[in-house]
């Protein structure tokens, strides 16, 4: 068993295994830090959603908790004005490119974006920023699930599971900048691709981008 170190998160003193990733340590202790792209089993963090900011004593600027290993005496704050501001902006940016209208979403009440909004007191609508979303059609070709790119936040959890857990490699990120998206090779519909429709990607999607068809029916039904 690895050595325990003492750290404090928001004045709460904790004994945790040395070298663990701060984000998981905090979550294990019931301290919520917003996050979307983090995967516990991943070898290296994607660090792409830019939500899990914290301030650590001795480091001048806020850092992402998913890229920090805990060490003896680490003093962490999850809520400071600078952290709150970065989280708010990142969250609003994600919303600006996300299909809003939670009532019609299969993930309504079970969505990570809703959770972040609730925990941090943020609104689920755009106030400062402009909507950037260009609506594209959903992929309903798989038997059991639907892929709605308009709700995708590019966290990459589906891609990771597809590559490293079920070892299929049907989906990946393509293109750059605003064009970046999750797609199959050759941008085939999922039903026509090498996707085995195992559904593991749907289980890890934190938002309503990947959802089982039965969820959609429930949602439509009421």
């Amino acid at each position: 068993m690895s050595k325990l170190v003492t750290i404090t998160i928001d004045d709460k003193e904790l004994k945790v295994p040395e070298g663990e990733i701060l984000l998981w340590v905090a979550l294990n202790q019931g301290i919520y830090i917003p996050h979307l792209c983090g995967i516990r089993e991943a070898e290296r963090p994607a660090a792409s959603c830019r939500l899990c900011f914290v301030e650590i004593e001795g480091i001048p600027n806020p850092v992402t908790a998913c890229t920090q290993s805990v060490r003896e005496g680490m003093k962490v704050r999850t809520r400071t004005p600078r952290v709150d501001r970065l989280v708010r902006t990142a969250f609003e940016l994600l919303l600006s490119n996300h299909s809003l209208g939670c009532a019609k979403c299969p993930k309504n009440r079970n969505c990570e974006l809703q959770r972040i909004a609730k925990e941090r007191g943020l609104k689920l609508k755009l106030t400062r920023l402009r909507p950037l979303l260009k609506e594209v059609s959903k992929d309903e070709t798989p038997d059991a699930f639907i892929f709605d790119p308009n709700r995708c936040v590019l966290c990459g959890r589906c891609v990771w599971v597809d590559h490293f857990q079920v070892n299929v490699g049907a989906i990946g990120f393509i293109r750059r900048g605003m064009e970046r998206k999750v797609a199959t090779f050759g941008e085939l519909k999922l039903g026509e691709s090498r996707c085995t429709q195992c559904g593991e990607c749907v289980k890890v999607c934190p938002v309503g981008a990947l959802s089982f068809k039965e969820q959609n029916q429930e949602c439509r039904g009421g």
Partner: protein
Amino acid sequence: MQSYQQMQKEALQKFEALREKPLVLVGTATCGRAAGALNVLAAFQNEISRNQLDARLREVGCMGHCYAEPMVIIYKPGFPPLCYGPVDEGMASRLVVDFLINDDPCFEFAIAALEPNDFFPTFSDYPRGIYENKIILADCGLIDPEDIDQYLAHDGYEALARVLNMDPVAVIEEIKNSKLRGRGGAGFPTGIKWETCNNAPGAPKYVICNADEGDPGAFMDRALLESNPHQVLEGLAIAAYAIGASQGYIYVRAEYPLAVARVQTALKQARERGLLGESILGGDFSFDIKIFQGSGAFVCGEETALIASIEGSAGVPNNRPPYPATSGLRGKPTVINNVKTLSYVPHIIRQGADWFKSIGTPNSPGTAVFALAGKVSNTGLAEVPMGTTIRQLVFDVGNGIKNDKKFKAVQIGGPSGGCLPESALDIPIDFDSLQQAGAMMGSGGLVVLDEDDCMVEIARFFLDFTQKESCGKCTFCRLGTKQMLDILTDITRGQGKQEDIELLLELAEDIKAGSLCGLGKTAPNPVLTTIRYFRDEYEAHIQEGRCPALMCKDLITYYIVPEKCSKLCNVCIGSCPVEAIFTRPDMLKAIYLDKCVKCNSCMVACPPQYQAVIKISPPVVEEGDKADEQASDNNH
């Protein structure tokens, strides 16, 4: 195996023998080729063979005077070596007949002599020459980049031969002592990077030369690879020896085909001479270099994205740490240095850390290489000691602003640098001062802007570049820069809102603090600096619907000043592609504003003695001109 001394002695003899007969050097780097150097080369070739002259013709790289390309240097025994430019085919045949055959050096075409003499000034007699202090550009344009002997004759590979007898730690110590800072942009101390990599556990280790130059207006790395490729190879080999690497890469853009070709030739020649490959110069050290051609994504200049690209993945950055020096290519310790950084290395080894520190400023020793572009008279490459001011660089080295326009700003450090105004002209150029002013050293792009440049549009232009080049992995860079770009676009179209400036500032700060890699962290700089120094221009766009520089098309209209217009001239009518200009009943010309597409043709066409076409901002509303239109219709 030939000893280095023997090799160098022979090269020197060969080099000196070359000068015994007339020798013509034509600059055929990309800048020269764009200006027609290959035709000039062919013209010399034809003329020399037609006259059956015993003269030699060689291709060289770029001397940095890109504004005067194609450039030609002629060595003729009995005359000082003379530099000519811009040379065309006719001038080429004149030079052969008048100078090579008849001993008239055609001083009227010459720019400068290369050596002091009694007939013609040298480069150091011009203001530019006073400020310039060439180290890594010294041989560019003077030696044949495809002949290793010419590099050897200029003490090339001497530093490599020397380090092979040194302890690698001593080599690192020398570079550390020199305080050389990385010339790719961030200015991280090179010696410390090498030391970290040397101390990092893991084998094999790698060295990579970063030649993924992508800034708009920057061409220093390309010019160095095209003009003196061996200098970079020698620096890379020394870096490899210092950290114990046996494999190196040159990551160069595929859109630099000439650079790739000349580096390939250089690699081949270095291997043939035993300066690369197995047991270099007969010793224990083995090292070779591969060229990796990148497909031209700006973000691939970022170290971790560059590594991903070589590994065969998409060029997308990863979180640092771990830094490449401890875990880089294939997870092994890797040193990544810019072309310029590596080019300094042989000079520092040969002349010592103290010599290097005697140039420049205490915290930024050495020289800075800038690509002067934009509205500056003498565009090209300049190498000046750190601490030279922007004013000296623009007005003395660059010879001021084109067409007697008024200086407005410099965009320094590439798309992620900043725009500095006239009040910043006396800032000494070094890593720290520029950063304080809100800009950065960057890789050395310097775009000069004049009174006709709108700073909001300039900020929009650079942000458009970085936004398109963003890899899209992280939220702030992908969506934040897009939000900023949309706001800027609205402002340049006269649709800006009062609160937009504050929102831009807020977003800019968050993107800087929140982005994953250097591209996002620096992308807002042009916006931040233009708001800081040119806020009044933003306000004029938003509050008055006016573009003070008369650049933003949506905020201007064209107008023909009746008092200046000549009744006898129809040039503007002929120039207009959409027939928007008409003749009024009084024979003066006027513009249908609803037809005008603001192409600027009439303004260019209007003869200089009239200058009757002007731009008006805020734009004139249509009604006023409807009357004219009707009047002219009635007239028909």
